[in-house]
């Protein structure tokens, strides 16, 4: 399929920006977390796009392998992060990140 890589990368950039906005706007910790996953995902898209651009060179596979690892690490990160959110919820009864402001100076 002959899609200009530039467009894919642009889409990746837009998705990333949307992920950033999501992190900054939302107060729900889980939604923030999901925005972070969105950002990761957009990075994966960019990697795959570059891998396709470089194909059929041998090092093109590196992009795919990288994405594989990113997904694995994202999974581990989600597990731990959600465990943290659960632990915070236990003490604060809320997952509103604005509640976690006791370091306010």
């Amino acid at each position, binding site marked *: 399929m002959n899609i200009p890589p530039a467009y894919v990368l642009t889409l990746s950039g837009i998705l990333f920006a949307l992920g*950033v906005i999501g*992190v*900054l*706007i939302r*107060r729900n910790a889980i939604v923030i977390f999901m925005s972070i996953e969105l950002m990761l995902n957009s990075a994966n898209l960019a990697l795959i796009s570059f891998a396709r651009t470089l194909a059929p060179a041998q090092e093109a596979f590196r992009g795919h392998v990288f994405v594989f690892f990113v997904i694995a690490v994202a999974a581990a990160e989600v597990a731990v992060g959600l465990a943290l959110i659960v632990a915070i919820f236990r003490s604060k009864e809320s997952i509103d*990140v*604005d509640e*976690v*402001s*006791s*370091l*306010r*100076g």
Partner: protein
Amino acid sequence: MVLLEVVQGGGLFAYAPLIIALPILGLITNIIFGRRLGERFAGIVASGAVALAFVIAILQFLALQVHPEGVTIPIAEWISVGSLSIPWSIKVDTLSTTMMLMVTCVSMLIHIYAIGYMHEDVRFQGDPGRYARFFIFFNLFVAAMMVLVSADNYLMMFVGWEGVGLCSYLLIGFWYEKGEDGIGNAVAGKKAFITNRIGDFGFLIAMFLIFGAVGSLQFDQVFHWVHEQGLANVGVISVATLFLLLGATGKSAQLPLFVWLPDAMAGPTPVSALIHAATMVTAGIYMIARSAPLFDVAQSTANLVAWVGAVTALFAATIAVGQFDIKRVLAYSTISQLGFMMAAVGIGAYVAGMFHLVAHAFFKALLFLSAGSVIQGVEHGHHHIEHGDGKPFEPQDMRNMGGLRSRMKVTYWVYLIGALALAGLPPLAGFFSKDEILADANMENMGVYILLAAAAFLTAFYMGRQILMVFFGKARSEAAAHATENPPVMTIPLIALAGLAIFGGVLNLPGVHKLTDWLARTIEHVHATEFNVLVAGLSVLFALIAIGFSWQLYGRKTMKEGDPDPLRKILGPIFVGMENKWWVDELYDFLFIRPYVAISWFLADVVDWRFWHDWFHDSVLGSAYRNGSRWLAQVFDLGIIDGIGNGLGNITDWGSQRLRVLQTGYVRNYALAVLVGGLLVLSYFIFG
């Protein structure tokens, strides 16, 4: 014999420094040990030191027989600055040795006398511990006097001059807490010192002038210069000698600076005898005799010297006639006789002056010591009768004496000898010395002669008056009636001095002129005075007439207790003047002392205290300082410096308050900040 060989070799001169060292050694010994080892020890050490000094003086005399031109023995280099060189050397020549011999001999006798006298006196005054101190001062005096007479330049002489002045002050005020109002003796000492100081000022100015003209203060160099260039510089020499005269006037108690000597009688009698009769007061005469070459050139000043001496002689004699204190009579007599000496050196009769100086030392010391003996005898009598009515008793007032001839025989006889010597009756020493002066005055200056002859007349008169009042007639007080003679330690020196008074005339008998020849070695233009029979005869005649007058007034009908003095009726107001010393002290007080005290009071109180201290220091300086420091403290320190300190704190506080806003505690804000940072970095990489 060995001594002759040594003498001929001139080796004896080397002992000359001992003449100063021995008294100093004596006084140091007394300072260290005197109080601890007792009166006898202190007295013997002091007298022994002076006696040894007398021996040294004799040795110098012997040495001078062989080398009559004398030597100068250097001891040390005192001042050496630029062109001014003042070495300390001892000049042993005939003139200085004459003084050395006389001073050490008389001092020795008086020291021995003082051993006994002070023993009584410290008990009478109530402080036996002060005995040693007396002899320390006495020895110091002898040492200073030796420095004076042995000096070979004007400045060293001045050192001795000041030294004897100091000792005089110390000894006059020996009983410093006694006297009128509890400070009378100290005041007398102060008066002596200050009056002397005026004279010293003259001496200093003279030294400056001499140094300025000659370039040196050494006697030989100055006299050499006078010989070479004296006639061309008569003006300078005249002024210098005028100031030397001022110095001599102060030290030798001439007009107008004689007022200290009568008050100096407040000191113990040995002091009066030694310092104020025989030695210190003669320093002025000695100084003029030493400066003979200068006075030979400055005839006008020499003339003035003679007139000052003559007028003083007559003036003091008149006062002596009206005095009732036994020591005061002798004090004014001393002033009068010093006038004789001054007149002699003024007319150029240096030998006559020195002759009279030595003879007068003998019989005036004798008279003073005898007077002391009389006073102590009367005090003994006073103690015996146990102060009956509580009235204050004056042991020195002649009106409280009388009839002591029978009670104090030795004292009477020696006193008589001294009085006759003073009156100038042959063959006692006083006749020859005074007659030589009169003969010289007759030749040189008639006016001076007349004044001196009148003074001699009065001298005989008041001595007769004194003898008759004290020793003849009936005792006018209980104390006199019980007076006792004094122990030998006091009477033996008296007898020795009486011997000197009798035989002292041999020094310069007319025709033999030993002293003239002796002094001619040192002083130039010395001539032997011919014996003037007319003058001699007139003076003896006047003396006898004067004694006759005194017999008429005081001997025929002796005064009884409470009688007024017969002269009072005869002379009336003149006698009152005599008795009150012609109000000279009162005049000085009015003319000088009161304005001076007023000025110094003004300066002290108004200028120094009120203006300077109160206004200037307190108001001006003090308040300026206070305001300055207040400004520094408040405006500068509190305001600016504290302001800076506080300001920094405030700024930090303000800044941190503002920056605090960033610490919201919200994670999303921090994430936003991260985004902003990331955007900036990205922009930099893209666009930069």
